[in-house]
């Protein structure tokens, strides 16, 4: 007869680099062994409990929640939460300990534990040193008994050591002395004995030395696993095993009983959350639709409010509403993205900007009753001001009620390989070579050959261990980090729901759970995200307002301006949100957007999902009238009509599942979730059967069902929801309008919002110049820190700001602009004096001279440098007594000046470097970008330019797209993978690249298909514009 047993002391891999099994593995193994219960007791952490809870719930197994705590002033304990109050205490205790220590550590003392000891159970683990210390034990026992009276046990752990029996006797004696019961425990750190090598490896990683040198830091054996009850019966007295069940019996807490509430204080007195929300929504609707609210919208709002009420999510919407309203009052531009844009309520509250009257919305994508999962509202704020929003949240709710969501940083193949490799004693050289073959990691058949290529014997013992351990380690949590912006806010203290710890950023705190955990527990989060384009839009609008002399906002931008669509149809989209990439640019002339909805499609279609699902070409053919649009049924037609019968958005796939295969809204959403995860989990097959049978039943052909399924697979993680695409399309249109009609303001704002987007300042400025904007150089007599607009001969002129000067500090730059006298500075010396550039910022003046920003004061760069370097240091202040020994030095040649411009400012207004080389290029029969764009398909051509970007999209099978730039524009080069392999050096190393190839023209889209690449970098001398590489 096997004894009943509950494991009360167990670490998962959320005790980082200690536990060698996932929480779910532990739970499942414990159930398999017939344990009565399992307590997850990670080191000062509850980060793994939700995963354990989910696994336990799925198989109906009893999970206890607790933590392993070593007090700084002793003793070592396991605390368990028998009920909700105890759980709250535990969470608060861990918060206290984590907040008092550096990231990843905790610090707790007796006084702390004492404060939270009223409900918790405690298992005492007396220190098993070489010599038992009865006096210390006695003192510890008394202190513990005082605070955990009736809730205290001595925990006995037996791990097959030579002195086990002695230890057992000691504990017997201690039990008799103190009157405390002894309970058996396992000190488990892995679910099976076979994880011992991984456990040793984790120890080695923790200690930062090879396993072979870890010596006695390793466990002597693998006994710290979930052991067979038969083995336990041999090791522990029966009474001690029985006691485990009594302890487990006292624990009746489940995470299901956590009651989570969003803040209630936003509701004015006398109103309920529901009535307040309804009031705000209706007043919002009247603002959105000044005349009559469309019936469709009224119905949607009514339905949504019903659902929100029945799920009691009012307070969540009100919280987001409050944050967004606050941001608006501060003049911070913000806009909801993602699935929230499916909600008319969000539109009414000003959270999202997609007009439900104008688009199809699938509210289930956002919120559904069946899903029983909280909605996710993501809001973008101006990236330069998001921190203000975050600090507002902390200030309004306090750090005990608001915290960022965690992101669990997990081992990925590269990091696992590195850490395991070091632990196994591979040298850095070998690891480096091994990491180069990571791409083949999943391809088991190829791996041995690749290993051999990397100089490793695939059959050798170390390599075999490496493979096995790396595969086990991949997916292990390594540490907690902060989510990009996911906030959890609660009505009561959040720290009683989940421990809160310090993030590595100062002034940030994170909870121990990530977004999946929150979904399971049913906690709501709001994503406070940052978007550079919002910053640029706000500034553009401010500049335009200043010029018009009246406020000009986003809503003042005229809708559906044909001039904007003409511009986009020419792929003239540098700087425009989302559609400025090369792939988007080559789509624009094919799609030729004419209406707002075309932009929604444009945003969504140039994505790996539709590309891999094979949706792009059918859509384009149908749009150009080259292919007939047909629908298998009226119901499907309703869903797909707006995209010409080709599913492009996630919502459409869900709707087809609903109308053609009989899925419910909630089921369709599950399908979407599986779509997102199927590459990881492979759990799409069950849906295939359901989808196919459902469609066949409703009279659709097998062929149609297969096609839909293939498209679903193609979507994978990369499909865009329509609502999200629509939100982004609004920003596309606004930014495109500004580019078309206010190019100076738009370019100025983009430059000031850098770094963002796809292009460097050099390209943005050249683009503005091509559109007739007068651009003026950086000048200490005129420039501000930011780029600014000045009156020009022909509309506003763009004055480059000091922020573009490489190496110039913000503070110094701002002082230079602020201290400038009305008539400008008289000399570099006066500049130094007035702008309070102290001795250490002699370097600042040097930087300005290098950037040619002193040309108005000193002349050319060389003369400026002579002047600046002549200012001597004196008593930590620049000696500004004028020693006029100015010198006339010959001006640098144009090429040298351009080189210097690129080095210090990243762009040059003098001339494009390629224009200087044009005579040389012409003798080699190279043509300009402009000439190339007029050539017919199939013509042999040569062109060259500065390499602006190299891209190797995952969807393009090794093809590399190179963008070159010459003095007339950009050249799009396609390099097939065989050429990539043959001319790797030219491809990767050239800064000036010449391409011999063939023109590939499709309508207005022209590419140069490379046949040979030439690295002409030496022609540039040491000119080095920085190439932006996206891989």
């Amino acid at each position, binding site marked *: 007869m096997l004894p009943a047993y509950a494991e009360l002391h167990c670490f998962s891999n959320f005790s980082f680099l200690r536990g060698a099994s996932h929480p779910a593995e532990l739970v499942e193994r414990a159930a398999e062994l017939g344990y009565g219960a399992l307590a997850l007791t990670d080191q000062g952490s509850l980060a793994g409990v939700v995963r354990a809870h989910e696994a336990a719930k799925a198989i109906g197994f009893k999970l206890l929640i607790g933590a392993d705590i070593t007090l700084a002033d002793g003793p070592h304990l396991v605390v368990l939460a028998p009920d909700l109050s105890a759980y709250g205490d535990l969470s608060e205790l861990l918060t206290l300990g984590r907040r008092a220590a550096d990231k990843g550590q905790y610090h707790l003392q007796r006084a702390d534990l004492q404060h939270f000891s009223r409900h918790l159970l405690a298992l005492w683990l007396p220190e098993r040193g*070489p010599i038992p210390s009865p006096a210390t034990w006695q003192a510890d026992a008394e202190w513990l008994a005082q605070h955990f009276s009736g809730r205290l046990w001595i925990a006995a752990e037996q*791990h*097959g*050591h*030579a*002195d*086990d*029996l002695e230890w057992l006797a000691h504990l017997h004696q201690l039990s008799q002395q103190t009157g405390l019961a002894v309970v058996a425990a396992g000190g488990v750190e892995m679910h099976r*004995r076979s994880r*011992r*090598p991984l456990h*040793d490896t984790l120890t080695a990683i923790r200690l930062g030395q090879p*396993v*072979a040198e870890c*010596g*006695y830091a*390793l466990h*002597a*054996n*693998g*006994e710290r696993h979930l052991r067979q009850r038969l083995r336990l019966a041999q090791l522990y007295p029966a009474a001690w095993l029985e006691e485990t069940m009594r302890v487990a019996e006292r624990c009746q807490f489940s995470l299901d009983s956590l009651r989570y509430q969003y803040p209630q204080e936003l509701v004015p007195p006398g109103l309920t959350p529901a009535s307040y929300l309804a009031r705000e929504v209706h007043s919002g609707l009247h603002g959105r639709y000044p005349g009559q609210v469309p019936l469709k919208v009224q119905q949607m709002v009514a339905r949504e409010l019903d659902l929100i009420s029945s799920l009691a999510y009012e307070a969540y919407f009100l919280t987001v509403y409050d944050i967004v309203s606050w941001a608006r009052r501060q003049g911070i531009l913000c806009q909801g993205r993602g699935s929230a844009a499916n909600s008319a309520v969000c539109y009414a509250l000003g959270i999202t900007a997609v007009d439900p009257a104008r688009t199809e919305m699938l509210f289930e994508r956002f919120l559904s009753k069946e899903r029983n999962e909280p909605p996710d509202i993501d809001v973008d704020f101006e990236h330069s001001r998001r921190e203000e929003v975050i600090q507002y949240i902390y200030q309004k709710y306090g750090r005990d009620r608001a915290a960022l969501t965690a992101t669990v940083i997990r081992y990925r193949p590269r990091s696992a390989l590195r850490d395991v490799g070091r632990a*196994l004693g591979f040298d850095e*050289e070998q690891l*480096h070579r091994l990491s*180069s073959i990571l791409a083949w990691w999943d391809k088991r058949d190829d791996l041995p050959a690749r290993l051999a290529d990397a100089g490793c014997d695939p059959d050798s*013992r*170390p390599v075999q*261990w490496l493979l096995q351990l790396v595969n086990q380690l991949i997916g292990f949590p390594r540490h907690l980090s902060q989510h990009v912006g996911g906030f959890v806010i609660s009505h009561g203290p959040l720290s009683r729901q989940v421990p809160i710890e310090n993030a590595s950023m100062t002034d940030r705190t994170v909870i121990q759970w990530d977004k999946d955990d929150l979904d399971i527990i049913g906690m709501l989060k709001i994503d406070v995200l940052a978007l550079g384009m919002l910053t640029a839009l706000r500034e553009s609008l401010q500049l335009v307002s200043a010029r018009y002399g009246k406020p000009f906002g986003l809503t003042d931008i005229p809708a559906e301006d044909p001039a904007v669509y003409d511009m986009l149809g020419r792929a003239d989209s540098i700087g425009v949100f989302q559609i400025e990439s090369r792939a988007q640019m080559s789509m624009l002339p094919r799609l030729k957007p004419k209406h707002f909805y075309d932009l929604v499609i444009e945003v969504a279609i140039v994505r790996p999902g539709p590309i891999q699902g094979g949706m792009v070409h059918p859509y384009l053919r149908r749009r150009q009238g080259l292919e007939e649009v047909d629908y298998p049924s009226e119901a499907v037609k309703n869903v797909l009509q707006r995209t010409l019968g080709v599913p492009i958005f996630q919502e459409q796939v869900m709707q087809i599942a609903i109308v053609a295969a009989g899925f419910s809204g909630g089921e369709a959403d599950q399908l979407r979730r599986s779509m997102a995860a199927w590459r990881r989990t492979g759990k799409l097959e069950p849906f295939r059967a359901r989808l196919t049978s459902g469609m066949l039943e409703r009279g659709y052909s097998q062929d149609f069902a297969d096609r839909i399924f293939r498209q679903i697979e193609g979507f994978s993680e990369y499909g865009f929801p329509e609502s999200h695409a629509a939100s982004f399309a609004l920003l596309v249109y606004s930014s495109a309008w500004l580019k078309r009609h206010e190019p100076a303001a738009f370019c100025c704002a983009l430059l000031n919002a850098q770094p963002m987007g796809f292009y460097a300042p050099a390209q943005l400025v050249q683009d503005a110049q091509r559109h007739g904007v007068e651009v003026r150089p950086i000048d200490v007599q005129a420039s501000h820190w930011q780029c600014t607009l000045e009156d020009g001969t022909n509309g506003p002129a763009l004055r480059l700001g000091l922020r573009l000067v490489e190496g110039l500090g913000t503070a110094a730059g701002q002082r230079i602009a602020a201290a400038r006298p009305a008539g400008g500075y008289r000399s570099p010396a006066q500049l130094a004096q007035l702008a309070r550039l102290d001795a250490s910022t002699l370097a600042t003046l040097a930087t300005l*001279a*290098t950037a040619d920003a002193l040309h108005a004061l000193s002349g050319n*760069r*060389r003369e400026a*440098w*002579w002047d600046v*370097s*002549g200012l*001597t240091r004196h008593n930590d202040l620049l000696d500004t007594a004028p*020693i006029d*020994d100015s*010198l006339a*030095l*010959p001006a*640098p040649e144009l090429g040298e000046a351009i080189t210097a411009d690129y080095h210090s400012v990243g762009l040059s207004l003098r001339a494009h470097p390629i224009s200087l080389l044009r005579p040389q290029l012409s003798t080699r029969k190279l043509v300009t970008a402009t000439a190339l764009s007029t050539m017919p398909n199939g013509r042999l051509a040569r062109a060259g330019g500065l390499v602006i970007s190299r891209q190797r999209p995952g969807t393009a099978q090794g093809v590399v797209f190179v963008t070159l730039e010459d003095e007339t524009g950009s050249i799009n080069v396609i390099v097939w993978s065989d050429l990539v392999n043959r001319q*790797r*050096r030219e491809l*990767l*190393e050239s800064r000036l690249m010449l391409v011999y190839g063939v023109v590939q023209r499709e309508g207005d889209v022209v590419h140069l298909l490379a046949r040979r690449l030439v690295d002409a970098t030496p022609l540039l001398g040491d000119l080095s514009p920085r190439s932006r590489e996206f891989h």
Partner: protein
Amino acid sequence: MRPGQRRSAAEALASSLRCLRRDTAAEHRAHNALAAWALQFSPMVTLDPAPALLLEIGSCLAYFGGLERLRQQVDAGLIDLGYTVQQGCAPTPLAALWLAQAGRPEAVALATLPETLGQLSFTGLPLAAEQIASLRRLGLQTLADVQSLPSRGLSRRLGLQLAQLLDRALGRQADPRQPYQPPDQFERQLDLNYPVQASEALLFAGRRLLIELSGFLRGRGLGVQQVTLRLTLQQRPDLESGQSQPLSAPHHATALPENRSHFDLMLAFGRPTREVAEMLGVLKEKLAVNPLPAPALGLTLQARVLHALDAPVSDLFSNGQSAADFALLAARLKARLGDQALTGIQPHPDHRPERAWRTSQQPDNAPQLPATLRPAWLLHTPQPLELRDARPWLGEPLQCQGRAERIESGWWDGAPIARDYYLACGPSGRRYWIYFDRKEQSWYLHGLFD
């Protein structure tokens, strides 16, 4: 490849690239060895920042048969050592250095020096990077460009260093150099009046040299741990001395006449010393086990590496069992039995009992064994035990005492174990350390207590 390139970028270009770490210590040693080597051409050799060497040759031109022949010899010698050479020759050390750096081998006379130097770029000058950058920013390229600017203004901007350098290079200002000093070494030779082969006579002669060494060391507060006694033999022996000279190390041995050769005895003392008696003791042991293949004509004692002696080695307690005496004993034993014959033993942190200790030449403080009861004597290889009546048997039935100590470890080095260890007793009262191999499911004897 180019300097400053990212490793990943370099590897993308050449997948077979092998990266090696730069060994500045080795460069330093080689630089010094070359300086010592160069002493054969001039007594005044200066170590400039690596990799340059400055030789003052004005005073030794006649000896080497003129400038050209001297320069050829230097070149040939360096090439022979495996180096590439860039020479410069000028009346001042700086000018010579700059010319060498610029790859201008022609000898320049004082009169034409300003013009020649003016053609050089200033980038090789020993100036701070920012000073070089400053000159560049002014649009300058050559030293002549630099000299064309107002010198006061330039000094105010760049400091006096540049002007001083130019003055020294042009010989307008003295440029004293610290000559290279070869390291302190001891080398004494003693010629014997007649061929000697008897070890007593050799010991007598050796003692004289050791006394000289001891005095030399005492004067400097130094000691030696190892010396070489080189015996010049009458005839070429069949036996090779076994000593090889590193290529880059200077050779002090002069060519020997046809019928002579030499025989090296290495004397190691276990610790730094300068006590004649200690050294003589080791010499005696060495001579006893290494008979001379031929009579000796002379002896040379060389001590290349000298150690500081912290405190004077006291003679007061020489009869006590001090650590120093133990070290001397070990050294003497090694001298007689060979280096490999004598090892120490120390604990080693490994859970596997057979690997929980190891031999070592140098004892250090290894972690203590965990507190377990283990026999001091382990069998070299565990001995399989037969089973009788389902109990392990070793001439008598063995009874396991207490609980198993389970040891599972060592998966990483190909000698994994999974064993349950027991203390076992037989009716005879003997105590054994036995284990049950969990993989093989069989019993072994691993050690004996007492």
